[in-house]
């Protein structure tokens, strides 16, 4: 028998088999494999095996289908081989095709019929399974690295784009605000357009940064007990000019008793503002938006009910997708990157809550932010 080039100096192997004789036979085969040092451990009990697997002490696992009252498939279901870097190889007394299929379904690295096991076959199976897993791991790490550099690139590029755009903002802003003397109406109109375009660019940069942070898992929340009634009243104040500009009304209904939620105030303020501002943007002039806060013992809910263009029920899932923009009569006018709602949902989910959207009773839509208390 030829020597195998295996990737590890010593292979730590765990046999999980309730039949001591079978385990003994396997040990004998393994000790006869040339060119490899094995450290073999045997466990016959299902529960004990689960515990031992959780220790991450082995490089490869041989799992028998029959484990007393339980089965090897049940074991795979619990340990989830796809989430592990070590291969799990299934064995069975009979070469059952259904069992083979089932083993693959639960991500076993390979399947052996006990009757056909010999040293050569066992060695091949073990080495290839280990090697495949290691390749998989390397590829996974490469992908992680690639993703990291993508996030980093977006972050660096976006931050750097901000500086020149801030310069444009300052200088156009100064001329517009009369720092360089009087300007004509026509000049003002042109400068306003330039200023607004630049503002849009800055918003896109901010959106890209937000998504890069979410996708990189770099969002950290600093939570504290926040009085939701006060937060909402504050948001109403800060967004009131947006509504009055369009002759729209913003109506609030708050419970008498204080509602306290354990949240990151800055982040949740941005989430709620985002939804409230959208309610104005996607509504015609003269409409009314309602904010309603209510709570029970476990959660607080903030409903934002608008009389806007509404969302076609078919497109409701798209609202919270990354870069997902839903076409409606106002969408071109409003502009945007399709990131605000994706980000908002992620933030609420990080709080252990959820955002949902439903069509309004007669028109518009109802966004609900549900937060655990």
């Amino acid at each position, binding site marked *: 028998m030829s020597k195998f080039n295996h990737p590890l100096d010593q292979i730590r192997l765990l046999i999980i088999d309730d039949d001591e004789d079978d385990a003994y036979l396997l040990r004998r085969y393994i000790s006869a494999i040339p060119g490899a040092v094995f450290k073999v451990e045997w466990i016959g009990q299902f529960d004990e095996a689960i515990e031992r697997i959780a220790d991450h002490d082995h490089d490869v696992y041989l799992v028998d289908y029959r484990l007393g009252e339980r089965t090897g498939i049940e074991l795979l279901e619990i340990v989830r081989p796809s989430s592990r870097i070590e291969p799990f190889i299934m064995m069975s007394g009979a070469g059952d095709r259904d069992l083979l299929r089932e083993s693959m379904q639960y991500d076993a690295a390979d399947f052996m019929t006990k009757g056909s096991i010999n040293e050569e076959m066992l060695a091949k199976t073990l080495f290839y399974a280990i090697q495949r897993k290691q390749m998989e791991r390397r590829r996974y790490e490469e992908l992680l690295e690639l993703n990291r550099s993508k996030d980093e690139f977006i972050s660096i590029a976006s*931050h750097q784009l*901000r*500086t*020149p*755009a*801030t*310069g444009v*903002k*300052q*200088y156009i*802003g*100064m001329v517009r*605000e009369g*720092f360089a003397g009087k300007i004509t109406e026509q000049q003002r109109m042109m400068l306003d357009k330039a200023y607004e375009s630049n503002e849009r660019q*800055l918003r896109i*940069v*901010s959106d890209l*940064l937000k998504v890069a942070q979410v996708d990189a898992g770099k969002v*950290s929340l600093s939570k504290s007990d926040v009085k939701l009634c006060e937060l909402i009243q504050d948001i109403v104040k800060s967004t009131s000019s947006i509504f009055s500009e369009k002759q729209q009304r913003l109506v609030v209904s708050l419970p008498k008793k204080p509602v306290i939620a354990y949240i990151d105030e800055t982040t949740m303020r941005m989430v709620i503002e985002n939804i409230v501002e959208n309610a104005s943007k996607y509504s015609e002039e003269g409409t009314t938006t309602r904010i309603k806060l209510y709570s029970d013992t476990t959660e607080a809910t903030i409903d934002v009910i608008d009389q806007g263009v509404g969302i076609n029920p078919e497109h409701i899932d798209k609202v919270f997708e990354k870069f997902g923009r839903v076409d409606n009569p106002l969408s071109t006018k409003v502009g945007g990157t399709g990131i605000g709602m994706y980000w908002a949902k992620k933030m609420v989910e990080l709080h252990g809550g959820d955002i949902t959207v439903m069509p309004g009773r007669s028109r518009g839509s109802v966004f609900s932010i549900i937060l655990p208390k």
Partner: protein
Amino acid sequence: MKKATILVVEDDPALNEAYNMILRSAGYDVMTAYNGQEALEVLKDAKDPDIIFLDLRMPVMDGIGFLKEYHPEKHPHTTIIVFSNYDARAEVDEAYKLGAHRYVLKARAAPKELIHIVEGVIGARQ
């Protein structure tokens, strides 16, 4: 009303100049530095300014490095406003921990808002 003194610490020349023009036109005395090291040197010979607008990412010595050397607690009459386009939470939190009083995203502040911020700080003191 006493004329307020402001130190602008900003490495981007176009922005530094813009902030200078805006603040001077509003009648404030403005000192300028292009990085943390320069800011420390400017401050050595001057009396404490009322406000420092401090960028975070700068060559030679960044904003965090400046805060570590400057010890804001020794200058109780100076309000430090971190004025940065890097809104990474960790960095902003560190600046606060080192004694910065406020954080403003540079990209948000139009010229008028810059003056509002200054008026707010000065007004609160009087």
